[in-house]
């Protein structure tokens, strides 16, 4: 089982090495097969490990394996070790499973791209990094995976490096993530100082004894970890990179910026729940940030006109739900939503990718419309994703979202306010999701569609369609794993690692579920009234509340604010330093030094007259001076 885990981890790494060394010697098609094959191997290994864990006693399901001491400094020893427990296996299955489907989809989506091989190599690098992140047995190795997913995300966002926006978006993502990485590192420093170890076993068993609950140190550690989680998971206030990251190819958006990497923050909080529970105030902050993100992102999604950006804002909003869950201690519900979200959001991105492909790379929804008749299969797949995202029973999103909401409603005053945010968010989710659906697939066709629509067999390429079908099936049925008031397979599976707070029962549960269904249906109805039925309602609304519309279209001015606060002063400082320091001093100094040496040499050279007797005189007078000095000293 341990061997299978290591194979699971290193199989994509091997693919990276092969692709990097092979270069042009493999064909583009083979490159895609190498990557998808390696991820399939990972998934099969993860499934095998899962099966083996199932046969074991629930309390004995934690295994660690160390290959070698990776780093040692003083008493601190950090090994290259993996940690196999229900939580990491859960993440391995999601990452490798959804990863395999998306990588297969990408072999179709990226076919005929100029640099297809580079793309597949990066993708394999990403899967390896993500597996490293979820399988790492200590926080330092986790941080290594954390940094490497940031790197591969950066490389893939600006994969189309000829587009300036893509390069800009890549840098933005990298810098905001680096901020989170930095706070993460600071938290690790504090842990090393307090506990002297970083491996999960030691840290989680000793932290409650060595770090006082609610003390400044506990708060700082949790804050550092939260900073990393918030940046990686694009939560307010470090969220501005995610919408821009949509410049990357669509499969990248599906895999990295929807299904796996951006949920790493949720995994981190669940994994280090011991440390968060030592700092209740930070733990609550995570939930509050999540709740704020649900609403902010949901509102902004209402006015976006780029099909991928709408889905990106929806991703932020859904991760907000997960943050609410793990922030309140409902880890099982959070991880459950992480899984169903991976299914339906990857499905939405990939069907959006089929639409974009069919329309010659157009992403603006104002130039779509009426595609339901032209692309019936894509429409149905998208509809399943949308129903799941909008939490309409019996699709998976309904169960996972209700798992979160019914945990929140029974979790004290904070929980109830989070629940209110969640219900408001549910209406918003349904509204923006079905706005997208109605605008893209219903109504009159834009002239652009008539001109550019080209369908392939199966509407997209076969390699693009079959992963979508599998994901659609998963998005439809995965919800039955955990039914509010019925059974809770995910909670039960994760309980040995992270114990979740109980869900509400009885009348409260019925109320919560009913409220969420009503909220979702309300959103769908509203979307139909506004965007489904042909009418001028959206324009009228916009004309009536122009400030609100501008506020939303400008995404609450976060970008402008950060520009003013950080970018503008930094670039001003850089300009001043360039003018006042670099040009006169740094660039000027070599010339100055050279010129000074030369003029000094010119003066010294005057003494070198070539007159032998002058030299002799110099020697003689030097001798005379020495004689005088010796005589005087004597």
């Amino acid at each position, binding site marked *: 089982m341990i061997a299978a885990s290591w194979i699971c981890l290193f199989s994509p790494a091997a693919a990276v090495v092969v692709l990097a060394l092979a270069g042009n010697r493999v064909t583009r098609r083979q490159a895609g097969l190498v990557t998808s094959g390696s991820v399939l191997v990972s998934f099969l290994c993860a499934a095998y490990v899962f099966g083996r864990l199932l046969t074991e006693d629930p309390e004995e399901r934690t295994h660690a394996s160390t290959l070698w001491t990776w780093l040692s400094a003083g008493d601190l020893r950090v090994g290259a070790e993996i940690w196999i427990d229900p939580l990491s296996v859960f993440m391995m299955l999601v990452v490798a499973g959804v990863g395999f489907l998306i990588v297969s989809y990408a072999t179709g989506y990226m076919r005929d791209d100029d640099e297809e091989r580079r793309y597949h190599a990066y993708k394999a690098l990403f899967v390896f990094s993500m597996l490293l992140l979820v399988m790492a047995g200590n926080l330092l190795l986790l941080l290594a995976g954390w940094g490497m997913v940031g790197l591969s995300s950066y490389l893939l966002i600006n994969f189309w490096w000829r587009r300036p926006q893509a390069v800009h978006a890549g840098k933005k993502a990298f810098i905001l993530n680096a901020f989170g990485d930095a706070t993460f590192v600071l938290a690790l420093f504090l842990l090393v100082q307090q506990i002297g170890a970083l491996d999960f076993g030691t840290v989680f068993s000793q932290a409650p004894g060595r770090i006082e609950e609610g003390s400044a140190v506990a708060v700082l550690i949790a804050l550092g970890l939260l900073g990393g989680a918030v940046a990686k998971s694009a939560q307010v206030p470090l969220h501005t990179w995610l919408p821009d990251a949509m410049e990357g190819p669509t499969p990248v958006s599906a895999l990295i910026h929807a299904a796996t990497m951006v949920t790493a923050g949720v995994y981190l909080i669940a994994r280090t729940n011991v440390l968060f529970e030592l700092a209740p105030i930070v733990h609550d902050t995570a939930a509050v940030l999540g709740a704020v993100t649900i609403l902010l992102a949901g509102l902004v999604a209402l006015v976006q006109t780029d099909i991928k950006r709408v889905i990106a804002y929806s991703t932020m909003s859904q991760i907000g739900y997960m943050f609410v869950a793990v922030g309140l201690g409902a880890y099982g519900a959070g991880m459950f939503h992480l899984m169903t979200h991976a299914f339906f959001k990857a499905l939405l991105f990939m069907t959006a990718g089929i639409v974009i492909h069919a329309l010659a790379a157009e992403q603006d929804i104002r130039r779509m419309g009426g595609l339901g008749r032209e692309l019936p299969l894509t429409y149905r797949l998208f509809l399943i994703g949308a129903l799941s995202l909008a939490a309409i029973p019996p699709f998976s999103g309904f169960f996972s979202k209700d798992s979160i909401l019914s945990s929140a409603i029974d979790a004290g005053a904070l929980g109830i306010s989070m629940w209110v945010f969640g219900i408001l968010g549910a209406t918003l989710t349904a509204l923006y999701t079905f706005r997208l659906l109605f605008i893209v697939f219903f109504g009159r066709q834009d002239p652009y569609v008539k001109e550019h629509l080209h369908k392939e067999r199966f509407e997209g390429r076969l390699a693009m369609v079959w992963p979508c079908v599998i994901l659609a099936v998963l998005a439809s049925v995965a919800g039955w794993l955990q039914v509010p008031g019925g059974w809770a397979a995910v909670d039960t599976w994760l309980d040995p690692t992270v114990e979740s707070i109980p869900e509400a029962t009885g009348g409260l549960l019925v109320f919560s579920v009913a409220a969420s269904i009503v909220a979702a249906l309300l959103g769908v109805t509203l979307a139909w009234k506004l965007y489904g039925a042909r009418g001028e309602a959206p324009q009228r609304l916009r004309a009536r509340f122009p400030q609100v519309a501008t506020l939303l279209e400008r995404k609450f001015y976060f970008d402008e604010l950060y520009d003013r606060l950080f970018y503008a002063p930094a670039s001003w400082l850089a300009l001043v330093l360039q003018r006042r320091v670099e040009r006169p001093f740094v660039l000027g100094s070599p010339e100055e030094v050279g010129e000074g040496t030369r003029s000094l040499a010119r003066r010294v050279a*005057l003494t*070198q*007259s070539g007159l*032998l*007797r002058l030299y*002799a005189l110099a020697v*003689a007078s030097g001798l005379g001076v020495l004689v005088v000095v010796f005589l005087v000293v004597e």
Partner: protein
Amino acid sequence: VLGPGITAYLVLSAILFATGIVGVLMRRSPLIVLLALELMLNGGNLALIAFARQHGEGAGQIFALTVMVVAAAEVVIGLGLVVAMHRRKLALDVDEMTTLRG
């Protein structure tokens, strides 16, 4: 110790040395400069031998012998240079030899 005291020897040595210095500094003919140099060396030698005699030790005499060997070698090279200069029809004047001026 028989003969005059060390002072007389040292005075003679100083006179020789000073004559040498003046010769090296004042004369322009390389032959004379070499000659004056030889005078300086011998002034030094005389002082060394005088001290050796005063202290009754051999070390000073050994130094003097070494200086003579070096002086002989130096004269060989110096006179060789003078002959070479003569053959190339260069003026025998040290002030004219200023090729190494900076």
